[in-house]
């Protein structure tokens, strides 16, 4: 019998009573305080995915292009010709909400390490950011410093930041969302996995020294933010991009020696997470000596050494015969390292410190927390919002249109991407703001990779199922618009507290929507990240349900690369897809009519397939000079952006737009119906493109033409609805962000 005194779980451990009992039963003894700490972080939502795992299972993860699917540091897809792309997404919401600069910077640091761990060179970064309203000084502060953190870190390590998105909504006022993604390119034979496989391999800890920073970062990320969160600031890690740049080069050089059998980054959960997960994956054990860890602070104890989340560290398993060769690489780059121990038979994770064994637990037990089946319940308020009656149409649609172009969610993001080095690496063909997705060429073969980052919080708030399915389809459409075939995606789920059935319902619905579209379009999921507890404890306000999608596509021929700016006067404008009065969650309702109800767009696999096939076919035939997907702000905003980008005017006859059930002009202009793409096509190719559309079951028609007059004219049955100059559009679309951020105090 264990005495009741011993049975007390150390203070601060946030394990549930069920988990405590499970650990005791499986271990057959009382864990010591270090072990309790390890279980605590590994059983946190952030590390264990204990609430989300059973739901995420429904996403398809197999396909002919998939080389590595969910469960590893990065998903990997085959690009052909012996090349692969590795990519991964991660959230850094909680740290960014209290320390935006370092929170965002270390997000970049972590995601880069995930790509390195599979042996790929990181070639592109992406960021998807969400803040409260730009009118709020707090949100502007977060926004400025998150962007600065990403810029300073990404620019320094020489990985271009090529694409992303920013959305502003009051639900993100306290809980901003900072999702970052990285894409790497590797030769297929160079792929390596984060596993300990061979007993006898030597374990080496490489990179930054270990300090007390970031201890319990993951448990902090697994609770809601409150007044006391400020006191958690020490739980935010501090980044060192210079050390990261050295690590990138050293890791890639070390892998080239052929003596490395596994690598893993030390991010959330530090040494505990890396050793337990690598052992569990490989079905082996590990013995390490914590006295050997190179530290930056004196007198650190075993608990701190096992749990520290100090940045810029990686764990290597090295073949003993090659240890000297590998260590020489680290010495060349003057990167500190320590040889911690070795891989052993069996499945035990054992750590010694000052002559005593301080950890001795099955790695599997630490690495795999039991799942929790959460309750889901549809919130009653949703139904009312969907059924709310429509607000009336404003009299002056031109004024509404220009205001919408200037609104915070539609205005140009140039203020952001100017601060990012998006050129380094000499791969960036379609640059930020120039196309629906970024395009990176491969250096050694004449092919290119396209990548995009998308989500739609407002649609999802009203209807998580369709909003999520629509976001996935939008990512696919964006890739197709630059001439790429979508290969696979990874998702980053951002929700409130999953212990609340209403939040968990949103999550389940969202994932079901993703699964439907993912299966329908045959685009598999190769990994992901879940961030729960994005909720303000005081107000109980959770973020709008937001799953961001990073999707990678392949461009087989460089000639297929397509951007969105108009190219030549006289060309025809073709609209592919049908416009419906699906106004709920639209920027127009929110910004202009100040209305947050209505039915949001419905996602349809059939329609998306038809549109995607049509656009891809037309581009591959060489008929398309510019392509742009219609999303936020609808058709009108999409046309405006194409005009501004191409510095050309246009004439559109609104009555020619393929539509259904539309009763009002504002619906035609601003509906955010899915499965719609605008194409610029030379006049003599119009018939061919329309034929491709009808063959693929997409509605399409020529709606107008590009003009060299500086006028942007949208007419309905001969009467102008919008008639303004290009410079008016530029003023409306290009200036709002600089005005909001440069003209106001911090």
């Amino acid at each position, binding site marked *: 019998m264990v005495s009741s005194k011993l049975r007390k779980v150390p203070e601060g451990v946030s394990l549930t009573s069920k988990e405590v009992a499970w650990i005791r039963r499986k271990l057959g003894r009382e864990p010591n305080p270090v072990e309790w700490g390890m279980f605590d972080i590994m059983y946190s939502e952030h590390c264990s995915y204990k609430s989300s795992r059973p739901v995420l299972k429904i996403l398809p993860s197999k396909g002919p292009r998939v080389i590595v699917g969910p469960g590893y540091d990065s998903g990997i897809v085959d690009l052909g010709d012996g090349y692969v792309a590795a990519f991964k997404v991660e959230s850094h919401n909680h740290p960014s909400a209290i320390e935006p600069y370092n929170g965002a910077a270390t997000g970049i640091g972590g995601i880069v390490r995930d790509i390195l761990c599979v042996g790929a060179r990181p070639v592109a970064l992406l960021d998807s950011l969400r803040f409260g309203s730009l009118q709020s000084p707090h949100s502007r502060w977060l926004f400025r410093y998150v962007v600065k953190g990403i810029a300073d870190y990404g620019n320094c390590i*020489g990985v271009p930041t090529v694409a992303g998105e920013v959305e502003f909504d009051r639900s993100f006022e306290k809980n901003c969302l900072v999702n970052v993604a990285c894409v790497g390119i590797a030769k297929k034979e160079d792929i390596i996995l984060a596993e300990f496989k061979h007993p006898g391999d030597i374990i080496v800890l490489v990179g930054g020294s270990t300090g007390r920073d970031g201890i319990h970062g993951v448990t902090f990320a697994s609770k809601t933010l409150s007044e006391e969160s400020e006191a958690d600031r020490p739980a935010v890690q501090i980044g060192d991009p210079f050390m990261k*740049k050295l690590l990138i080069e050293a890791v890639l050089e070390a892998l080239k020696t052929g003596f490395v059998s596994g690598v893993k980054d030390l991010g959330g959960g530090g040494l505990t997470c890396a050793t337990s997960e690598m052992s569990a994956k490989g079905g082996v054990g590990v013995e390490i000596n914590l006295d050997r860890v190179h530290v930056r602070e004196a007198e650190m104890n075993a608990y701190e050494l096992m749990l520290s989340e100090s940045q810029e560290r990686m764990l290597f398993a090295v073949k003993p015969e090659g240890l000297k060769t590998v260590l020489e690489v680290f010495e060349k780059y003057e990167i500190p390292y320590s040889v911690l121990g070795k891989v052993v038979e069996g499945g035990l994770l054992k750590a010694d410190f000052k002559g005593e064994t301080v950890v001795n637990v099955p790695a599997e037990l630490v690495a795999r927390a039991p799942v929790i089946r959460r309750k889901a319940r549809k919130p009653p308020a949703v139904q009312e919002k969907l059924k709310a009656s429509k607000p009336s149409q404003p009299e002056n649609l031109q004024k509404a249109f220009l205001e919408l172009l200037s609104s915070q969610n539609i205005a140009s993001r140039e203020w952001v991407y100017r601060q990012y080095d998006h050129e*380094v690496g000499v791969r960036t063909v379609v640059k930020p703001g120039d196309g629906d997705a970024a395009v990176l060429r491969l250096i050694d073969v004449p092919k290119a990779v396209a990548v995009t980052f998308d989500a739609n919080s407002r649609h999802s708030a009203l209807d998580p199922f369709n909003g999520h399915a629509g976001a996935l389809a939008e990512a696919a459409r964006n890739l197709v618009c630059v001439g790429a075939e979508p290969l696979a995606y990874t998702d980053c789920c951002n929700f409130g507290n999953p212990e609340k059935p209403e939040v968990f319902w949103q999550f389940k619905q969202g994932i079901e929507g993703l699964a439907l579209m993912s299966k329908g379009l045959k685009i598999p999921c190769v990994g992901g990240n879940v961030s729960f507890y994005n909720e303000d404890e005081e107000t109980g306000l959770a973020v709008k349900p937001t799953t961001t999608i990073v999707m990678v596509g392949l461009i087989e021929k460089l000639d297929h690369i397509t951007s969105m700016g108009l190219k030549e006067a006289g060309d025809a404008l073709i609209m592919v897809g049908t416009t419906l009065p699906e106004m709920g969650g639209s920027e127009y309702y929110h910004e202009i009519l100040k209305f947050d109800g209505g039915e949001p767009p419905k996602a349809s696999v059939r329609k998306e397939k038809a549109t995607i096939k049509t656009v891809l076919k037309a581009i591959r035939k060489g008929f398309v000079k510019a392509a742009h997907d219609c999303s936020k702000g609808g058709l009108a905003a999409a046309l405006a952006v194409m005009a501004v980008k191409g510095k050309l005017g246009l004439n559109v006859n609104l009555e020619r737009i393929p539509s259904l059930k539309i009763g009002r002009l504002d619906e035609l202009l601003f509906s955010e119906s899915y499965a719609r793409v605008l194409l610029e096509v030379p006049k003599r190719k119009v018939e061919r493109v329309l034929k491709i559309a009808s063959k693929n079951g997409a509605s399409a028609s020529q709606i107008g033409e590009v003009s060299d007059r500086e006028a942007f004219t949208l007419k309905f049955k001969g009467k102008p609805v919008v008639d303004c100059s290009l410079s008016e559009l530029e003023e409306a679309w290009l200036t709002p962000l600089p005005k909001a951020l440069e003209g106001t105090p911090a």
Partner: protein
Amino acid sequence: MVRIAVIRFPGSNCDLDVVHVLKNVLGVEASLVWHKEFKALGYDGVVLPGGFSYGDYLRSGAIAARSPALEHVKVMVDNGLPVLGICNGFQILVEAGILPGALLPNENLKFICKWVYIRCDNGWTAFTWGIPEGKVLYIPIAHKEGRYFSDEAELERLSRKRMIVFRYTDQKGEAVPEANPNGSIRNIAGICNEKGNVLGLMPHPERASEELLSPSGSADGLLLFKSMAEYVKR
């Protein structure tokens, strides 16, 4: 065969890009050389690439400028061999006293990544002798500390000795204030030494050396590397 060294300092990040352009686009022999192993002997020219050498800790380029590799670079400078400093490389050359002046934080205090127009004002350097004077090139910048500055006396000397090689201009080649992205004095984008064998510039010619990568479909940056290789052959 022309042999050009591209020095990698810890934190350099445009090194592989320059090697790619020299080797794969231009077809000259280019070696990536770790700074500790760099010796002047055996190379016909050297490029100090962009990036954040030593993390730009202290000041951009300050630490690399004091590394032993720069002693070897100075030997090449004195021997009249072409020495090109791009972005952080320019900052290193200035910090090392090989080129005059200073590179201050951009006027808006932010990193700026943007395609800009620059005009060639001296076609007699090792890097521009294939470029007609007055020609406008389209090349991107990407830096946070690129605002060129020096005092009036020095500027007067730069002008007199024709050491101002590139200025930021509009598309037509006018050095107007609106075309100046970072607040550089007199719109200066790049300068050379008196002999014209050392060039430092903030824009990245290696990023504008292939038509595929340029928004205008030009490959203006390649002209600098071509000139460099031709200069060596001559």
